[in-house]
């Protein structure tokens, strides 16, 4: 339903801090938007009395706060905690609300480790790489016990590698990509491996390290010479800085990197 959604609930003077994405929220609409777009992050860090207190005191919604507290007290399903928030202001239309309720219910029925991986993915999307790595590592730790399918586990290793590379942890990232490739060799994993090798290993040691992986995968030809050339070309361009320009406000740029890094590691 297109139009203008009248905001009738006051804006809180003191915000509620969502730890998982390091973001302050000031309004019930922002809370709805977060819940709607981050189902995997709706856990104990959100479903707690700090939030219900903020809803009562910050937003002045005492009745809603009581409903949410009751859901916590009887350890109810996520939907019993979340849905009243949406109903309070009608943030979603009838069909959207039904579809969201279905997604919530499907999510809560998913296996724990898949939910954990999805949480990691949501954290990566929110730039919280350190927290994402912790979620992925927990899945990886339990791999021996649960005997996951290689496709699933390689996805976890790959995503973990992406988060590590974003944190400039190149060696750890490389190891994760190699594990992903070893478990389930795909073009995506091969390209990630090759690029991580090129970034991490000194020029002399690059062929040697590549050969080591190739030796384990004699049947597939994904780590081909063609991919190697393509990778070296990409790395070469990056090293020459052909397409890069110095930002006008260098201080601002560095501050932005620092902020992102702190956010990612917080």
């Amino acid at each position, binding site marked *: *339903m*297109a*139009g*203008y*959604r*009248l*905001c*009738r609930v006051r804006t809180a003077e003191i*915000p509620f801090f969502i730890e998982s994405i390091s*973001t*302050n*929220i*000031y*309004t019930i*609409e*922002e809370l709805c*938007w*977060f819940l709607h777009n981050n189902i995997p992050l709706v856990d104990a860090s959100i479903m707690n009395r700090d939030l219900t207190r903020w809803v009562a005191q910050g937003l002045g919604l005492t009745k809603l706060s009581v409903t949410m507290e009751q859901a916590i007290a009887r350890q109810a399903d996520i939907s019993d905690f979340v849905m009243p928030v949406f109903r309070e*202001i*009608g*943030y979603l*239309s*009838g069909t959207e609300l039904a579809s969201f309720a279905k997604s919530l219910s499907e999510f809560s029925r998913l296996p724990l480790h898949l939910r954990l991986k999805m949480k990691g993915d949501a954290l990566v999307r929110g730039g919280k790489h350190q927290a994402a790595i912790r979620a992925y590592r927990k899945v990886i730790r339990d791999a021996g016990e649960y005997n996951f399918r290689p496709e699933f586990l390689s996805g976890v290793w790959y995503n973990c590698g992406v988060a590590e590379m974003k944190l400039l942890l190149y060696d750890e990232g490389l190891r994760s990509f190699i594990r992903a490739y070893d478990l389930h060799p795909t073009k995506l994993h091969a390209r990630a491996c090759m690029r991580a090798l090129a970034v991490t290993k000194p020029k002399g040691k690059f062929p040697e390290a590549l050969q080591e992986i190739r030796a384990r995968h004699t049947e597939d030809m994904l780590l081909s010479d063609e991919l190697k050339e393509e990778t070296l070309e990409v790395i070469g361009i990056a090293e020459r800085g052909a397409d890069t320009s110095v930002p006008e406000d260098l201080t601002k740029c560095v501050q932005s990197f620092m902020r992102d890094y702190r956010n990612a590691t917080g």
Partner: protein
Amino acid sequence: MNEVRELLIGFEFGRETSTICYYDRKSEEPVCVTTKVGTNLFDFPSILAYVPSKNEWHFGLEAEYFGKLPGGIMVSSVYDLAFHGGSIRVADREMESSDLLRVFFLESLKLLGVRNIVQSIAKIVVTTPEISPELVFGVRRAMSSIGLMAGQYSIQDHRESFYYYTYSQRPDLWTRSVVLFDFRKKSLSAYVLSEKKEMNPPEAVVRTAGSVRIPEGDEEKNRTLLDYAASVMKDNAFSGVLMTGDSFDPDVMRPACDDLSRERNRIYFEDDLFVKGACYASYEQAERHAFRGRVYMSESRVRMNIGMDMIIGVNTVPVPLIRAGSSWFEASESCEFILDDRDFLVFTLQEMGSAKRRNYRMDLPDLPKRPNRTTRIRLTLECLSPEVCEIRAEDLGFGDFYPGSHRIWKGSVSLLPEAAD
């Protein structure tokens, strides 16, 4: 005073004198506040005096005394300054008209005898002979600096006070038109209140007749009133005649009043009619709400409803923003909403008493691109005159998720009815 909390105040702010009254809920009528205990002295001069050595302000009768003392500074032009705007130098500081009004209201409201004025007043309506934009904005600034919220005060002219006074009386007074004769020092003026019942909602209008000079002799005075009344009352049927003003003497004017009452008109005399009208307005607007279904119209009133269709809960409902019939200087509204799949605003305009609606579209060029429902807009509507309403839309973003650009878009809507084809 019988009332001490949730006070409903009428404040007549005149060029020379002012009067305060409060609504007594027990006796169900406005009661004027005396300036001296045990007397019937209700009016006080609209003046201020400042004593620099003590850094003290005085108003009314005290101001007359302290202003004449050595070192005392008398400010006798409070009304004129407020009406025309501007500033005045008092001792070593330049004071805006709103600063003077603040002092004047704050000091004179002490007559109410309550400890905390802001907490005790539910509503105060200020009435003046005439209204100017400068006066309105000055009173607004003064009231808000005293600490009163926007809904706690309003300002109206004598004509509107007459309207509130009349419709707060028994209905047999206002079944037809009502005329008010106002006796001021040496001039006599008249106000005629009539209702256009054919309109929907019915409109009450007050027209004024040009004033005449009051002659000296008793017989001449009676003759003047009768002649004046004949010219003022020739076109309407009247159910009530009201008399007010300092220079009205019932004993002197009895022959003329008897003549007027022979025409089956009821004659009433009311001292302090305008301040009581303001007090009734205060009661009506804050508590009674009995005038709904009838609207007071004058040239300062907006004739157009402005609204927006907004989503509230799961329904789209028309939300009124500016209501027809409100004074242009008080017609303002502010609200916030989230854009849902829209990058422009649509307002609905509907002329008073007509079912015809037309839309006004306001584009928001260069609105930052964000996911749907992550743009919060603060909308402010403010009438600049009875004919023009200014619209301001500000991009507030969406909290820390999408910080606002605080870009402001402006538009203006004509409140004049569209010309007929």
